[in-house]
């Protein structure tokens, strides 16, 4: 797993202060405070329903907070400000009856582009995302990966300063995902700030300069992936152990090579120096009380579980 060197920042692309928002009775953002430095790839990591998409829609000015303040590119969100923002929705948002070229042309016109400059920009972007030969094809004839690349080209068309992405690689195969990220990182190197909502740990670790862990509409922690993982041991062990008690935790913590221990019924989560030594000892201590064990290298998911006490796989992270 590689991490990117943090680029120089020149201020804030976005700041969110004490922002709350509810869908009826359900609180989606609960006094969330967050700052996104300019020029970074910034990840919002949290389970489904944790408030990530709602936060993106606030940054895009599509929703107004019921409390708190949002500033984007130094201003309160507004309709004209959207000319400087690119937004990729989680769900595919394409008219299947339009052609690839028409899709980009319409978007360019809505963002004030036109004439030869627009045609040249469309041609360059289609080349860049590998769809140059499909310019006249109806969108309905594209594969899922091609549709996502077309949507990315649409986002990049007006050269936005801030790019908001809502789970951009869901459903993509590894090659399509790599191609999409290559284009995104290119835009980031050209100066665009990228804010990414995701529940994919690998994506956040590999591509994000900074990551905010979101849980139930609140900021649980924020930092570079390496900072968030500081203190984790090499291996992560997830143990399904319904009979676990806090008294046992004290005993386990005393074992050599055991780092953080977190318990959220029925799962015990531990990071340890060497899982191959820890797990057999655990079975000796627990007897037949353990139902399942999962072992892997520690990731941001472990940091999330340690900090929040819930797994990224748990949906309904919002209240």
């Amino acid at each position, binding site marked *: 797993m590689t991490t990117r060197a943090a680029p120089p920042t020149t201020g804030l692309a976005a700041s969110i202060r004490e922002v709350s928002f509810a869908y009826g009775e359900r609180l989606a953002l609960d006094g969330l405070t967050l700052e996104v430095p300019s020029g970074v790839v910034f990840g919002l990591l949290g389970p489904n329903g944790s408030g990530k998409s709602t936060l993106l*829609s606030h940054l*895009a000015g*599509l*929703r107004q907070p019921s409390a708190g303040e949002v500033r984007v590119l130094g201003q309160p969100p507004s*309709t*004209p*400000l*959207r*000319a400087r923002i690119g*937004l990729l*929705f989680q*769900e*595919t*948002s*394409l*008219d*299947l009856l339009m052609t690839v070229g028409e899709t980009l042309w319409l*978007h360019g016109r*809505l*963002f*004030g582009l036109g004439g030869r400059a627009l045609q040249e920009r469309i041609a360059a972007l289609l080349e860049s995302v590998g769809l140059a030969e499909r310019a006249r094809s109806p969108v309905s004839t594209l594969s899922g990966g091609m549709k996502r690349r077309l949507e990315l080209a*649409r986002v990049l068309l007006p050269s936005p300063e801030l790019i908001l992405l809502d789970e951009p690689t869901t459903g993509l195969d590894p090659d399509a995902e790599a191609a999409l990220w290559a284009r995104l990182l290119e835009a980031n190197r050209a100066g665009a700030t990228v804010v990414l909502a995701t529940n994919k740990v690998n994506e956040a670790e590999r591509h994000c300069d900074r990551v905010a862990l979101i849980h139930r509409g609140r900021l649980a922690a924020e930092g570079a992936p390496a900072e968030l993982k500081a203190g984790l041991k090499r291996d992560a062990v997830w143990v399904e152990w319904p009979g676990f008690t806090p008294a046992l935790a004290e005993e386990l913590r005393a074992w050599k090579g055991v780092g953080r221990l977190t318990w959220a019924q029925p799962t015990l989560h531990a990071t340890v120096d060497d899982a191959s030594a820890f797990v057999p000892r655990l079975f000796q201590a627990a007897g037949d009380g353990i139902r399942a064990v999962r072992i892997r290298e520690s990731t941001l998911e472990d940091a999330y579980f340690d900090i929040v006490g819930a797994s990224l796989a748990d949906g309904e992270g919002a209240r």
Partner: protein
Amino acid sequence: MSTAAACAALLQRDVRAVLRSRSQLYSSMLFPLMLLAILGTGVSEGLDPTLVRDGDYASFLVPGAIAMTVLFSSTFSSASYYQDRDCGLLRVLLASPHEPRVILLGKALAGVTIGGVQGLAVLAVAAAIPSIDLEWQYGPAGVVAAVAGVLLLALLLNGFAQVVAARIRTMQGFHLVMNLVLFPLLFFSGAFFPLQHLPGWLKALAYANPITYAVDILHLAVYAENSGGYIGLPADFAVLVSLALAAFLWGIGRRTGYQP
């Protein structure tokens, strides 16, 4: 699960959906009743070929055919709101640097253009058919009046359709409401039978019907030899301009009824 149980479950699901959609339920029951009351009465008492010029009912029908074309076209154009919503394009449009009313204005103008062009195309084709006898009593000014009448009707219908689209969640419900409202309006607008011989209650309804004024413009501009028996262009335009602008502004000023 057996085939019968699966079919029963699907039947139950669809029946529930219809019962939940009150607009669909009421429209499907009210529409045939209105058809009987209005079209039945109109045909019984107003449709006598000797009442139209030279007994030429085909030529008399041209303005009605144009109005019906504009009506269908406007309905289908406005239904594209649902297609845009369902394919996700609407959320992209609403996330652009334009207010929702600009997006609605663009879509409404498209509807007016398509409806207007299709209506005028029907007029052009009708004018080219030798057996159709159009009088054009006002000469070139009549052509201008006909074009204006068609565009105003398209403006009125698109505005109304946009208002309905903002309130009805499903395309099926939208079409049913549009049919329920617009078809009866078309039937007693003078499009299919002259108004002057209708019973008083139906004539009163006809004069309260905005489409009547557009059909009257088209009859006067295209078909009639003189203005006898018609409302008259000044009153037609006064009413239609007011209603078309009001409906159009109402339509584009509405909330989209959709949050991206």
